[in-house]
């Protein structure tokens, strides 16, 4: 048991679950996608990326890369939301679809992160 490892696993998994929770639902229905969930997903993804800094192994590099991809996609989704909100004071289905599709891409990267973590864990023999 190691607090650092717990935190590491926690944030990676939490980033993926929040992302999934935001994405699930009809792609163009604004009622199915909560902006607070997106906010949390972005924040947790930021933390997960920071925790992956500086691992010099090959797996560490892939870890960081997948996190950066997820983060970039989520930030793009947030920006789309922001500008859509500025333009017409409400989110129409077309905007929602592009926001959710961007977040879907982030989900894929987050899943890769989780898979790498699981594989890495199973490779560690006791």
């Amino acid at each position, binding site marked *: 048991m190691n607090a650092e490892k717990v935190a590491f696993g926690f944030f990676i998994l939490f980033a993926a679950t929040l992302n999934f929770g935001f994405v699930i639902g009809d792609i163009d229905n604004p009622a199915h996608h909560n902006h607070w969930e997106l906010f949390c997903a972005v*924040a947790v993804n930021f933390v997960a990326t920071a925790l992956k800094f500086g691992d010099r192994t090959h797996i560490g590099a892939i870890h960081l890369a997948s996190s950066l991809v997820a983060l970039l996609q989520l930030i793009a989704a947030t920006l789309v939301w922001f500008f859509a909100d500025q333009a017409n004071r409400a989110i129409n289905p077309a905007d929602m679809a592009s926001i959710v599709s961007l977040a879907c891409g982030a989900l894929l990267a987050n899943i890769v992160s989780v898979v790498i973590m699981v594989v890495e864990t199973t490779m560690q023999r006791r």
Partner: protein
Amino acid sequence: MNNVFFNALRRLRWPLAAMIIIFALSTAGVALIPGVDANGQEWRPSIFQALYFVAYTATTIGYGELPQGFSDIQRLWVTIVIFMSVFGWAYLLASVLALFQDKGFQSALIHTRFRNRVQKLQGPFYILCGLGETGRLVAQALDQIGHQFSALDIDEQSVLEFDLQNLRSDHPALAANATLADNLLIAGLNHPRCKGVLALTAKDEVNLAIGVAVRLLKPQLRLVSRASNGAAAASMRMIGVDEVINPFYEFASSMDIAMRAPDTHRLLSWLTEARGAFLPPRIPAPPGRWVVCGHGRFGAEMVQRIEQGGYDVTIIDPAVYESSSSQARDLQSGMADGDNLVSRVRHIAGAGTDEAVLLRAGLAAAHGLVAGTDDDTANLAIAMTSRRINPNLFVIARQNLVASGPLFEAFKADMTMVPSAIIANQCLAVLRTAHLSSFLREVRRRENEWARELIGDLTGKFGARSPEVWSCALIPSEAPGLLDAIKYSVRAAQISDLVGTSQNGREPEPCVALALVREDAIVLRPEAATPLKGGDQLLLAGVKAARHRISAMMLNANAAKRALGSQRV
């Protein structure tokens, strides 16, 4: 850079994560807690407005309560936000400061900077190992003739002193152990423009280790090593060091040449000194008795040479057995020529600084004195006392430290032996001009008469100042123009075409071909009518203008054709 950068991020990831969490929590709180607007209606800042507010509050910029005044509940939360963010910043800054104070991180930064500077070196460069007195002299000289180098020394203080030296260009230097292959690689051993390695540390075993590493990793590199005794020099030659410089041996053998062939000695020192040096006067080699004080590495070499020259020698050293038998001498100097019937060597135990000992050694009737201990003060004391006893004495003084230079200059010994200067000179002669060292080696084998003739020729052309000596190769990369002209010329090109022909009645700039190297064979002072072939290499001596003219000829086909054609009838 990459490694250091990621290492820094790795050390900062927890503080960064803490900052992110604090920002996220603060933003969420500000966006969720309702306030009351001017009309008494409930309002909430949007997430973006909340983030904006937290960004300027947490960084202590503090524009105030925007877009409108906050309610007391909001202010309560903002107070908490301020304290959280102060804690976050303090944590982050403390981590950053700790990181930069860390010795390991600092040395990683220095290593990385050094590696980057070496990687960016443009021209060909050398790796200089050892920045002691010798290393710094060589560094200065290399810098002056425009060579680049990277330097390694195990002692941080030496590197600092080197960095403070006034050099024309900036050379990367690192305090690191040069015997470790890793450090040699950082210094550019694998760099495509690395031309050679100079192992000039004060320790023979270190120089040997550097030699082994270089020969294993980069066998084709030029390798120059410093050795302080014959055994070390022999093992360095065995592993394939190109030039081994043993200052004691160099000095003793030049002393030997000075006694046997004074003109050869003048020629050698003239050509190896810095350019423009005045032709050194002939050294009067006194026949008769020599007194050698100090029988260490230097003293032993000198005794051997003086004895070979046919003189009697008296050794004064605290550590010798007082005797005059040849067996004791053999034990002392490791020589094994048992056929010496009459020993010419006498040993006296004692310090040379003791006047009684000097008198007992027969100094009053001696012709020469070698003050060769490893202590500068003792050497000066010996030399001064001896000169008082016997004013006509030929004095050779050994100066160990560059710092004692003014004292030795004031004393004006007939010859002063400065190991670091000898090494630096020799090193430069080897590096500055290809083939100069093999030319000098050949010269040493020649008779005195030959050298006297050459000196006569050279001084007739250049006066008492030594000419510039350089080498050139007739290969496509160096002499495209000349090779082109030779290909289409009616008659074969000769050395005289290159060295100089009078044009329009004007005498050419003085220039002499010292040697011609063709297929590894060296010809000294080749005939002016020798035809030139592609692949030939020449060692030339001449004034600067001649050098410019010849390099123009080598590069420019028209200039070469003009020179070749001017003699065509």
